[in-house]
């Protein structure tokens, strides 16, 4: 999403909105590149199968190109701008609450995923003394720690993780992951069995779960045959349909489609604070 800049051009948070929009635009670039990669002709990935006479199973292995490292760099710009939008917000609220630019020097939007106490400690350090109780509470309300065990997957936690890794350590590299639902695929396979009353030569099927990272050569599908029924291994097994892939980023494994949710969450925070500022219409 992109906020209409013309609406905020004269607002005190115009810089915050500009940073937010910059992040959205960069993410659109990234999303387009990912779409092009996944929909290339020929496809960037395929499957190669072979029969394993030891385990009496047919194994399909993933073959494909690695997603480009450049995506990690673009994502770095996205998260940098989104994280900065939150910090700029704190600086503007500091000025609103009677502080100065000097008060902003150490100011930062705290992101606490562990506990309320962690938030209080961070807020004491990162929110200037002039910050009003009301505004401190507004920073506390959207914090990840409220989610308990789910806190590491909270949009702000993910944003902080991606941003810190990119700033100081490594690019948030991208990986391909299985985006097809294993249960759905296997149920379909079972239902499509056309052997009539004949017993199926298939002992069992196995497929990686949705979300599983797919690397070059990794087995993603196995058909285990019944040695008693299928006494000779098949030379070929036709696999119908396509492997549906997704792209994930960083150690946190952020599904590229979920970056939008992080943006929307950050925008909600910005919007709430926007109402705190007196309306300014210098252009009237």
């Amino acid at each position, binding site marked *: 999403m992109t906020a209409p800049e013309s609406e905020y051009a004269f607002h005190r948070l115009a810089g915050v909105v*500009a940073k937010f929009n910059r992040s959205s635009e960069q993410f659109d670039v990234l999303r387009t590149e990912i779409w092009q990669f996944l929909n290339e002709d020929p496809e960037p990935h395929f499957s190669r199968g072979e029969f394993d006479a030891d385990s009496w199973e047919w194994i399909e292995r993933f073959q494909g190109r690695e997603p480009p490292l450049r995506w990690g760099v673009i994502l770095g*710009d996205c998260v940098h701008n989104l994280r900065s939008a939150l*910090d*700029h917000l704190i600086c503007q609220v500091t000025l609103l609450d009677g502080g100065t630019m000097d008060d902003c*020097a150490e100011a930062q939007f705290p992101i606490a995923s562990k506990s309320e106490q962690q938030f209080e400690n961070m807020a004491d350090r990162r929110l200037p003394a002039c910050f009003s109780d009301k505004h401190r509470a507004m920073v506390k309300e959207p914090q990840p720690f409220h989610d308990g065990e789910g806190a590491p997957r909270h949009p702000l936690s993910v944003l902080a993780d991606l941003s810190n890794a990119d700033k100081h350590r490594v*690019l948030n590299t991208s990986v391909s992951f299985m985006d097809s639902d294993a249960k759905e695929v296997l149920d379909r396979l079972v239902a499509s069995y056309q052997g009539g009353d004949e017993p199926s030569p298939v002992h069992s099927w196995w497929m990686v779960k949705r979300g599983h990272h797919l690397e070059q050569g990794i087995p993603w599908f196995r058909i285990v045959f019944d040695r008693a029924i299928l006494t000779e291994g098949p030379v070929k097994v036709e696999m119908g349909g396509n492997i549906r892939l997704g792209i994930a980023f960083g*150690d946190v494994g952020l599904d590229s489609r979920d970056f939008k949710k992080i943006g929307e969450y950050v925008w909600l925070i910005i919007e709430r604070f926007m109402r705190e500022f007196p309306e300014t219409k210098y252009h009237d």
Partner: protein
Amino acid sequence: VGKKERLRRERKDAELAEVEAGSTGLPGFQLKMDRARVHLENLDLAVKKWLDVHADLVREETDPETGDGLIVVDPPTVSPADIIALIAADCIHNLRASLDQLVFSLSWAFTAGPLSKQVAEGCEFPIFGPRGPRKQELDKRVGAVHPDARRIIEDLQPHHAGDAFAREELWILDQLWNLDKHRMLPVTVFGQQAVQINPQALTSSATYRLHGPIRRKTEIVRFEGARPEAYPDPKSAAVLDIAFGKGTPAYGRPVTGFLSGLADYLRDEVIGKLTPFLD
């Protein structure tokens, strides 16, 4: 070795391999530098476009009192667009982050096995201006890099310039980054970078303004009497640009030129000297 132990070892090996594959970050700093160059190209285009659109701000007029020919520049009705500051900010971010990622890669290269979490999270390219770093401050940031690389990083520190530390490239980069990250977009202003003079075309004396921001109608050249006809196009007299504004550590410096110089400095004086320690 029992099966259980073998499985435990295999799992451990697999975990280490995963950490190694995901954490070397060796090309990261280079990709960040490349990205900064892409932003620089876009910045150059955005600045040129802005100046092109505002070319009519430079014009000729005659001083009604003295009859002197003047070349003046009017201030723009609105400040340079946010997009210029936003692209500049992205460039700054990538330049600065490339330094931290370089330290991570140097640490990785010099350390046997995967980096511990503590070391990995402490990696940072130190930049100390007003005072020198304490030993423990350096240990935390560059404690895992080759001792010779650490020495080079120490020698690059802005505090060695004494009171002039604030004019050092690394210090300015760090301050610009902090400004953009936490406080505000780096403000940009419309300004005159230089004046182009062709003395041979002058038939009388003339006074010039050399450089500075354009906040109000500003005289760039004043000819004594009418402008000489042989004098070249007045628009070429004023070399205009977009510069960093007040409140930024690079006040008055042309945005594109300064950041481009900074990128060259990092390539030649920092990364170039430290990459031998990545082998």
